[in-house]
């Protein structure tokens, strides 16, 4: 069964999501990669502010290719999430509830997810053309000079993913391969 989510997503909704749930997200999400995270948290240290109100928000670890004329965005699949491990515990503490990416997360990130109630959703790495069909609108809201690494505000429609790590710390990357492992 597919769980339909509307972003922003509250901590109460996040608590209901379980590893293995197939989800479709509609609403507003933000892109940020490591360069944007670094700058965002430096800005927070300095001014106590972030470029957007992060409470209940979703960050998609992604840097799109340029949009062709008449299209809202280029290809936009997830980037490797572990590069954000240094920053995610802080963004979760500040109110982030959902991360979308691909690949394993560190213990510190998972501990923060359990403590504050956040969820990690996997999108298909390398399916950037397909995923771009689920983006209705894209707008750069901060750090334009970073190019593809700028923070984009995306309006998404039924963006597909799977809950890989839930807010209790259940982790598909640890459980699923064991079912098929032969050596």
């Amino acid at each position, binding site marked *: 069964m597919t769980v339909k989510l509307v972003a922003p997503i509250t901590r109460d909704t996040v608590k209901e999501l379980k590893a293995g749930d197939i989800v479709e997200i509609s609403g507003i999400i933000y892109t940020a990669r490591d*360069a944007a995270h670094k700058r965002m948290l430096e800005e927070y240290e300095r001014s106590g502010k972030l470029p957007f109100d992060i409470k209940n928000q979703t960050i998609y670890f*992604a*840097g*799109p*290719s*340029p*949009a*062709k004329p008449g299209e809202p965005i*280029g*290809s*936009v*699949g997830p*980037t*490797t999430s*572990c590069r954000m491990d240094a920053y995610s515990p802080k963004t979760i503490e500040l109110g982030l509830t959902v991360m979308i990416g*691909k*690949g*394993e997360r560190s213990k510190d990130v998972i501990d923060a997810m359990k403590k504050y109630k956040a969820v990690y959703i*996997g999108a*298909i*790495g*390398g*399916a*950037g*053309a*397909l*995923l*771009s*069909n689920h983006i209705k609108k894209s707008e750069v809201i901060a750090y334009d000079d*970073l*190019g*593809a*690494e700028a923070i984009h505000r995306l309006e998404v429609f039924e963006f*597909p993913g*799977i809950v*890989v790590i839930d807010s209790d710390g259940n982790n*598909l*990357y640890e*459980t*699923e*391969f*064991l*079912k*098929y*492992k*032969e*050596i």
Partner: protein
Amino acid sequence: MREIDINEITETVKKLCIESNCILNNDIYSAVKNAEDTEVSEIGKDILKKLIKNADIAKEKMKPICQDTGMTVVFVDIGQEVHIKGGNITDGINEGVRQGYSEGFLRKSVVSDPLLRVNTKDNTPAVIHYNIVSGDNIKITVAPKGFGSENMSKIHMLKPSQGIEGVKDAVMETVKLAGSNPCPPMIVGVGIGGNFELSAYLSKKALLRPVDRSSEIPHIKELEKELYENINKTGIGPQGLGGKTTVLGVNIETFATHIAGLPVAVNISCHVTRHGEAVL
């Protein structure tokens, strides 16, 4: 002596940059499609189906298969009977990359200095490997490589006593450590022999060979087959979410080496292993 104009090289590189980033090569497309039939995990099957759909959309819209359109790697085989006129070949290739990444709406992912990290905004410079060969042609292969998989690659400087078992362990260990990060199903390029840098070069070059073509050296062909089967028994599966499709191909290239060494380089690549070639 045959003359080739630099503009012809630029045009070719430009075209190959765009095509290789938007059109998945047939060998990989077929391998994903076959895997969709044989995959036993439901989630895995669905992912493989979506990868095929993604490749179809990319080709139809001439949109990048993956947004990480990579650092552009270019292999150039220059016939020694060729004279290049009208400019410097490296400049001509970089101009082709510049034009290709701009006109093809490809992502610019290169920073000029590894520590200062300022984007060059045109994806140059490319990583270019020149090779002098016989004849009067130039063969250009463009192989853009994303860093999700590049970051999971490794070189192992083994002792000769570790032998073939050491090679197998090095490859398996690298693949397991990579896990879900390089967007499996992967393609694994292995370079065995040479020295430190040549093994890495060979592992990259191995990725250029179609996944449905084995090595012509009997014992290497056998090793490719064994590693392919064993990697698919790790259970990692599509996207690391479990299954029997972890690798689509294992390609190995070898070279002579020193009496004291056994270098093994493992270049991990994703299901979007891109390469296009042209002969001028």
